[in-house]
């Protein structure tokens, strides 16, 4: 179904199944289950969506429709380090598009992509609410604010080490 090889472990599947059974019968269970599935696997593999569809008795087309409607659900694995650049208005007015360009330039991939070594992936987001620090970039949950394009390299270098 998907061209991405599924690399899920038994433990992950166990966690997924227990999450599904915890939500089973609950009204509107699909979204909470998908959130947790993404937490477990880092993205929503085709195989996982199929399990969700089967267990919650929802057509796979519907599960997939939901997965592709919301921008937070990902169908592809993310890099080890997730670089997210805020393109909310406050950040944009302060030049976050230049920050994104700098990150893309530095990592040699485009927004939405993952580096070949799976070390970094870039995504854009809409406002994390840290407008006071605009423009901001978030790496693995850590917020870097008041950025200038020249700051980018130094910050990324820190993550290159490990």
């Amino acid at each position: 179904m998907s061209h991405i090889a599924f690399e899920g472990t038994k433990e992950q599947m166990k966690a997924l199944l227990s999450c599904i059974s915890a939500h089973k019968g609950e009204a509107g269970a699909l979204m909470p289950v998908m959130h947790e599935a993404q937490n477990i696997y880092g993205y929503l593999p085709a195989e996982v969506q199929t399990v969700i569809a089967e267990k919650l008795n929802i057509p796979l087309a519907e599960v997939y429709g939901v997965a592709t409607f919301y921008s937070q659900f990902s169908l592809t694995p993310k890099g080890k380090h997730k670089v997210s650049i805020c393109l909310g208005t406050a950040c944009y007015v302060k030049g976050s598009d230049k920050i994104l360009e700098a990150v893309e330039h530095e990592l040699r991939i485009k927004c939405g992509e993952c580096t070949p070594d799976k070390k970094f992936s870039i995504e854009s987001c809409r406002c994390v609410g840290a407008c006071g620090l605009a423009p901001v970039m978030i790496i693995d949950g850590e917020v870097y604010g008041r950025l200038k394009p020249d700051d980018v390299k130094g910050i990324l270098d820190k993550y290159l080490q490990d």
Partner: protein
Amino acid sequence: MTVEQLKKIAAEKANIINVRRIVREQAEKLSRTTGYRKQVLVCGGTGCTSSHSHEVIEQLEASFEELGIDDVLIVKTGCFGLCALGPIMIVYPEGAFYSQMTPEHARTVAEKHLVKGGQIVKELLYVETVHDDGSVIPFSEIPFYKHQMRVALRNCGVIAAEDIDEAIGAGDYAALARVLTEMTPDGVIEEIQKSGLRGRGGAGFPTGMKWKFTRIAEGDVKYVCCNADEGDPGAFMDRSVLEGDPHCVLEAMTIAGYAVGAHEGYIYVRAEYPIAVDRLKIAIKQSRKYGLLGKNILGSGFDFDIHIRLGAGAFVCGEETALMASIEGKRGEPRPRPPFSAQCGLFRKPTVLNNVETWANIAPIILNGFHWFSSIGTERSKGTKVFAVGGKIHNVGLVEVPMGTSLKTIIYDIGGGIPNGKQFKAAQTGGPSGGCIPAKHIDIGMDFDNLVSIGSMMGSGGLIVMDEDTCMVDIAKFYLEFTADESCGKCTPCRIGTKRLLETLDKICSGNGEPADLEKIKEISEHMKSSSLCALGQSAPNPVLSALEHFGEEYNAHIYEKSCPAGVCKSLLNYYIEPDKCRGCTLCARNCPANAISGTVKAAHEIDAKKCIKCGQCIAHCKFNAIVKK
């Protein structure tokens, strides 16, 4: 928990909280009754957390241990509002306002100020709180706060956000107690109706009327929903309320549940707000433990409980029918109304939905009465409004002012004006659904109707300030990119209209615009406004139309002169080295990724426009301001 037990907690905590609310002399007196010599409030909101405020707290704790300080209370609060200065720390009873704290600063403050007999460390205070004569202004009196009136944000930055006792001490749940013991459901609705409160989420629909429709709708099962899917990129007041005072939302939803006859509530909150989600979870847990949620609340026999549902990144889910579809586990596509949510909402049951800021206004109305609330604001817009002020302005942050406060007051008196001596050009309100307010309207009183009258809207209260360096065509394009990306794709006008509109703006910004394009823009825009299914599509053209109305000459410059007056639209710019300023340092040439710059050392350089990719590296590296965009 009984009402008496609730009152007992409130009484125990009241003085501690009040020290943070009153003027310095009284605070010092009151402080002595609390058992704490001083209180240190450190902001734990998203902005300050991003600036590592938790490290400040850890350092304080370590220093206290080291210095043997055991009578100073550390409080991790929600957002103070002045996010640009984070991490923020305030010491009471003095009201000393420390900004941009680091762990080292925290150690210094602990050693010099917080120890017995210590003195304020003036060098670390926010500059505007220190007079020229060296005297210190308490933070509540600095211009940023002085002009504000905090109703919805009353407890944000005042209480420990994860401590229900502090929330109760600050007055949370007192309104619920009054409602459950003294008021009828109809009485509650009447109070809200008479207050004139209008929804703070965008459309400004009268809240009391919404409740009433839900109350009279037939059905045994009804729901109360909270829209915490703050989607306007640049607005973050809802996040701040959830982070700073989550209990006020739980309380208000419970009050609404009582008023409309619902026993279950859902909070739909953005997954991008992890701190808010955590605090909500903690608050719900605490509230259940105290019996303020669950069965037989405060012994009244009324049952109510609240669930959290996470959004997943879809702006359209701010629309009520889409939000409900999302809670139901579906794609967040809106459906036509009627039937309205009050009759047929979540799971097809009567549902009342309000946004966070609206909920935050409920308890004060119940406690202070509708007369008090309706005395604030303007004729048709009562109460206060929180604005998330951002963009090209000094004091980026959250500002709560009475409705009708002028834009000028917000930008200059509270916001501290435009940085770098630049000119104010326009302010965008209402986010992607709103429009811009040009400089000529800077005296406009900010309320629902005034904003609509000049082609903008209140929206959720995002207020982005733009200076002369902002291209209004580019900004319109930015918003349209947003709405095109966020359109759910259900109805034709929005799905295809946003795309065609964006293509046209792209064409104009890239220098290929034709005069007929303006007509096309107007035509598609009007069509989307009149024919789209939901408010997203109906309002998506607003930023474009409003920019066209107020800054038509900028569109014309792009189309007829192929130039971008603000110097933003790359395709319309040429980079140029002013020979008299260039010293021939070669830095630009060395940093040009396209090898477009030629010249010899100590001689003026030149840019080959054909090779130039307009990346801006040369300008960034030039130390003599010799390179300009023309």
